[in-house]
């Protein structure tokens, strides 16, 4: 299986990593590659790294050749997979399996052996609602508040973030001086830890913060942003977009640069308006990249936690409490620690994410096949 239509192999420039894009066309997958040795020794830095790891790699080669004789080429794949699968098995799959076990038990004990089996009790408790649209009628009202908040948040955050990322990528793809500088600037917040992001913006937006000081000075008058549910929510979306859009901008920029320029030249000759060129050329050709961006942004959006938690603590009231915060508070930070309930909630979230991702792939099956 390939990740749907990505990257667009036929348009890729290969195997050089030159900066221009105009020469892309015609260098398809069948283009002759330079001898591996030459490629490997391309740069001084690469050469140095190579010299450093060479002895180790040569040493590993001895048992690997033996294994290759023993297993044959295709079964050797499992040898290559083994270290990673071992890590994944222990630290990614096993916790999830344990989570399934936790989800069927109750109580506040940490050790699984001490916990009473309650079957689907946790799921029933989460889903027990007179009216699922009104959290106040639910047994776990906080869960449903978090669900609806997350839904709104993801819709707004993904929409706005992808929109601005696309705009930024298009601007950066234009004839811009100091492109490298601007590109780095937009990527910069990605480097900050979520706690620092929250700290900075809390500092800006609190009642005695920088923004209000500026508004006071400008005569507009400050506003208590973080006490107003709507504004706190809006600023959470803003903060999350601020922190993550750089990453998606770079991906989209890469997608844009993979579009051969001569397609546009043809469009210009046909006197197509820029808007028409954007809709008819850019967007369709960008679709595979867009799909990756949307799928990733959606998954990460649903999993939003650290920065908003440090920013508002989920408030005012429960206005910015999202689903991962609910899971974290129920199972870890709160008292008593309901590991079972939070494990059940996390499985529900994972299930929804899988379904959403499959739906996205199905809706975009055209670009998936392409």
């Amino acid at each position: 299986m390939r990740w749907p239509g990505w990257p667009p192999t036929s348009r890729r420039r290969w195997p050089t990593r030159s900066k221009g894009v105009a020469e892309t066309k015609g260098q398809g997958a069948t283009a002759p590659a330079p001898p591996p040795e030459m490629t490997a020794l391309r740069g001084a830095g690469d050469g140095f790294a190579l010299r450093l790891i060479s002895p180790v790699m040569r040493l590993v080669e001895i048992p690997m050749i033996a294994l290759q004789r023993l297993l044959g080429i295709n079964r050797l794949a499992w040898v290559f997979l083994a270290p990673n699968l071992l890590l994944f098995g222990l630290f990614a799959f096993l916790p999830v399996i344990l989570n399934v076990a936790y989800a069927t038990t109750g109580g506040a004990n940490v050790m699984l052996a001490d916990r009473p089996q309650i079957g689907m009790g946790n799921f029933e408790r989460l889903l027990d609602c007179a009216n699922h649209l009104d959290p106040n009628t639910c047994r776990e009202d906080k869960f449903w508040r978090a669900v609806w908040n997350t839904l709104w948040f993801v819709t707004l955050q993904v929409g706005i973030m992808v929109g601005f990322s696309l705009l930024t990528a298009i601007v950066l793809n234009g004839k811009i001086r100091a492109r490298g500088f601007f590109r780095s600037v937009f990527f910069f917040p990605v480097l900050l830890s979520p706690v620092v992001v929250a700290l900075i913006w809390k500092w800006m937006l609190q009642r005695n913060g920088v923004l209000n000081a500026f508004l006071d000075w400008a005569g507009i008058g400050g506003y208590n942003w973080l006490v107003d549910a709507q504004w706190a929510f809006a600023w959470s979306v803003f903060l999350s977009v601020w922190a993550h859009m750089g990453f998606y901008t770079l991906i989209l920029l890469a997608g844009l640069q993979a579009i051969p320029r001569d397609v546009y030249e043809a469009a210009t000759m046909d006197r197509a308006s820029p808007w028409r060129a954007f809709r008819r050329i850019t967007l369709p050709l960008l679709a595979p990249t867009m799909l990756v961006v949307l799928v990733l942004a959606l998954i990460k959006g649903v999993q939003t936690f650290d920065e908003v938690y440090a920013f508002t603590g989920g408030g005012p009231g429960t206005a910015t409490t999202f689903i991962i915060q609910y899971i974290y508070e129920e199972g870890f930070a709160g008292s008593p620690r309901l590991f079972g309930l939070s494990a059940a909630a996390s499985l529900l979230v994972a299930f929804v994410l899988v379904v959403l991702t499959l739906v996205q792939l199905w809706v975009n099956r055209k670009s998936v096949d392409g």
Partner: protein
Amino acid sequence: MTHLKLLGTTALALGLAAPAMAQEIRFMCYSDGNECEVYDDVLTRFEAANPGVDVIVDVVPYQAILENLPIQLAAGSGPDIAKVTDLGGLSQYYLDLAPYIDRAYWEASFGDTLGWYRGAAGGDAINGMHSQLTITGAFVNATLFEQAGVEMPGADATWDDWAEAARSVAAATETPFPMAIDRTGHRFAGPAISYGAAIVAEDGTPTLSDEGFAAFTAQFVEWNNDGTMARDVWAGQGGATYQDAAQEFINGELVFYYSGSWQVGRMDSTVGDLFDWQVVGSPCGPAGVCSGMPGGAGIVGFSATQHPEVVAAVIDFLAQEDIYAEVTARTRNLPAHLGVAQAGVEFEGASPAAAAALSAFAADLADVAPSAFRYQGYANNRAMFGITAERVSQAIVGELSVEDAVARMAADLEAALADAQ
């Protein structure tokens, strides 16, 4: 070569002479100020007196004590000693110090606070040393009162009196906020008890929904909505997140600030001479009860330790009157050690205002209601603090009506008690 040999023989000799020694004790500590530094310093004296014992103070974020320590203890991988605040909740893991220490001295010195560490089990174990006692109470901006020409309510004044006075001061001086209470169920409990809430009954039954509790909840929500209380504090956060209003008070934007004794140092160093402030203790409720909430942190040993006798010796060392007095003076806390409290503490580097404030807090300890003492040692009090902060905030921002909030608190508490079994 000779060097190595020499080292080897010394180690051997030490090993034979003191088989129980050469121990490493891990002390997990968090700081609100300089506590961990002071402990580390004081414990070097213990190390000097007990060769071979190495007490390592690991300074961790408070979050690690609150969220991670219980899980580590459950998995059997905790430290030997820790400074904790969930006094009763962790009692099942504590090391009973009684076999290693002088019970009479401890009971005479720490009295009632020993009960906080016994949790639901009760009994007469000596599980921990209350290292810093705190009590909730109010800070008042005296300069604002003076400017407004409003008389400060007296010692028996009620919450209503103070609200009235604070509002008129705020109006006269154009101060944005008359009052504020820290956002935590712990601070909320003091006035609630004064309004008649039982919280933890004498037989140990907890409740968050009796008449007194509902009355103060309704009053508090009303005050938040009519501008008496600074809305930011409770409405600006979610979940059980802690939020104080010290910044507002320090900037002179707040007339009456209900917090606690631990703020004294901060006020002392940051207010400077921007204005005069003083501590007025806890106002009274309609029934004449004027209770604050006691609190604080304590130092406990864990029964999973390899060296129980050393752990006990370390804690016993810190509990000695002279050491306790020194630490209290250097960290500017209220002493829970009765002997130290009686002798009085000369707080190191404290201004006259701060010293007066600390004595005012100490004097207010007499007013603390029995149920407030019980609440502090109650094993599930953290769950109750969380529920209070969360549901009351929801009522303030309008997600729930006051009645619904009280009903939810009752239901949450019931569920929490069922789950905690």
